């Protein structure tokens, strides 16, 4: 029992970090060094616990073969209220991220922003347009002619900048990106070899 409890904790921590992406039982099994069947049993137990525990705000759901943590339905009202009680910082991390990307990389398309964040940025973009911090700065030539976004005068004003050149440099970031690229290329190599073995190509 005690052993199982620790396993539940381990799995909870993994699911928590995986967030929206969720985890397949095979992945969990690989990490906890167990079988898929055992991982699934533990996941079932975990779900039962969440459902039975009144003090749990989250529960476990399986969508498309992947398990993820979600908030319980009965708290939807509270979550809606969160929108009406924004953080004292008044801008969410998501909006700030998108704004930072646009400020430093402008003009930039939504696809580029999505790629960089690894998540869709539609909502934050709308918020930022509504706040008057960003605007369309034309369109990219080429397929689809996607909108290019840039910052506004209001952005400069509210952030106390004389001009966009007044942004502090992000030199360190560039270095980090380079490292990431190297890492990615290693991964890529692995995946490529793997795919060749499988004799297929991802489409």
């Amino acid at each position, binding site marked *: 029992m005690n052993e199982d409890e620790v396993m539940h904790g381990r799995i909870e921590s993994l699911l928590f*970090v995986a*967030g*929206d*992406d969720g985890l397949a039982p*095979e*992945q969990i099994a690989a990490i906890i060094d167990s079988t898929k069947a055992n991982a699934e049993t533990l996941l079932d137990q975990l779900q039962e616990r969440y459902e039975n525990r009144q003090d749990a705000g989250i529960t476990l759901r399986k969508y498309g073969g992947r398990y993820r943590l979600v908030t319980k339905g009965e708290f939807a009202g509270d*979550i809606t209220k*969160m*929108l*009406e009680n*924004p953080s004292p*910082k*008044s*801008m*969410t*991390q*998501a909006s*700030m*991220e998108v*704004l*930072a*990307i646009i400020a*430093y990389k402008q003009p930039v398309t939504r*696809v580029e922003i999505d*790629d*960089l*964040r*690894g*998540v*869709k940025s*539609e*909502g934050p973009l*709308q*918020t930022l347009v*509504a*706040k*008057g*911090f960003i605007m369309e700065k034309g369109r*990219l*030539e*080429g*397929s*689809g002619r996607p909108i290019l976004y840039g910052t506004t005068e209001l952005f400069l004003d*509210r*952030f*106390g900048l004389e001009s966009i050149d007044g*942004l*502090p440099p*992000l030199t360190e*970031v560039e270095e980090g990106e380079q490292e*990431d690229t190297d890492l*990615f290329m290693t*991964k*890529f190599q*692995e*995946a*490529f070899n793997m795919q060749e073995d499988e004799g297929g*190509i*991802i*489409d």
Partner: protein
Amino acid sequence: MAYKVKLEVFEGPLDLLLHLINRLEIDIYDIPMAELTNQYIEHIHTMRVLQLDELSEYLVLAATLIEIKSKMLLPVHEEDGLDEHQDFEYEEDPREELVARLMEYKKYKEAANQLKESADERAIHFTKMPEDLSHYGEVAAPPPDEQLNVFDLIGAFQKMLQRKRLRVPLTASITKAELSVDEKMDDIVAILKKKGGTCYFDELFVEGDLTDLVVSFLSLLELMKRMDVLVWQNENFQQLTISFGQEGS
């Protein structure tokens, strides 16, 4: 080589001095100036050979050391029955300011180590990205009046980068399959156009997850096959450069 690295690790003249004091097992409150000065100068002499960038700062402190040393050699007051050593305990010790500086620096050097420990402790606790609340409704957003902060922007950006690090593919079996080769080919052409017709190979592979990168690469291969783009290199081991082929605009 190992010696060189060891020298480079000094964070400045005060750091070097602290190191010497410790190595020579000197009482910091009663520093033998002659010995320390000699050792110090010997060290920066070695560093001069290594063309240390901050040599001038090391030299400034060397001058200070020599000055203190000479002050101590001067008889301050000739009072009968007191030897030189005792004399300094009553008069202002020329070393006092240096010791105070060293102690002050040491305090922060230790605080830096403590901070590093806190950061290490914090680093083992992982968190998750905020949920996307857009399907719960729009955030009503009139332009805020308050002054916002550029540094919050940087903070947000850094958090994102950290998260991106965390988003390295869980296992190679994940296929998101969001982009087709055809779409990605268009993207590559778009990037090339934006960059004025030429870009480095790496610039096509900066973002995205593993699947994206694989698709990007396959797209690039396809574009090369169609002669839409050329991939070339000035010399061995240099960056690959991509540019439009004859057909490209």
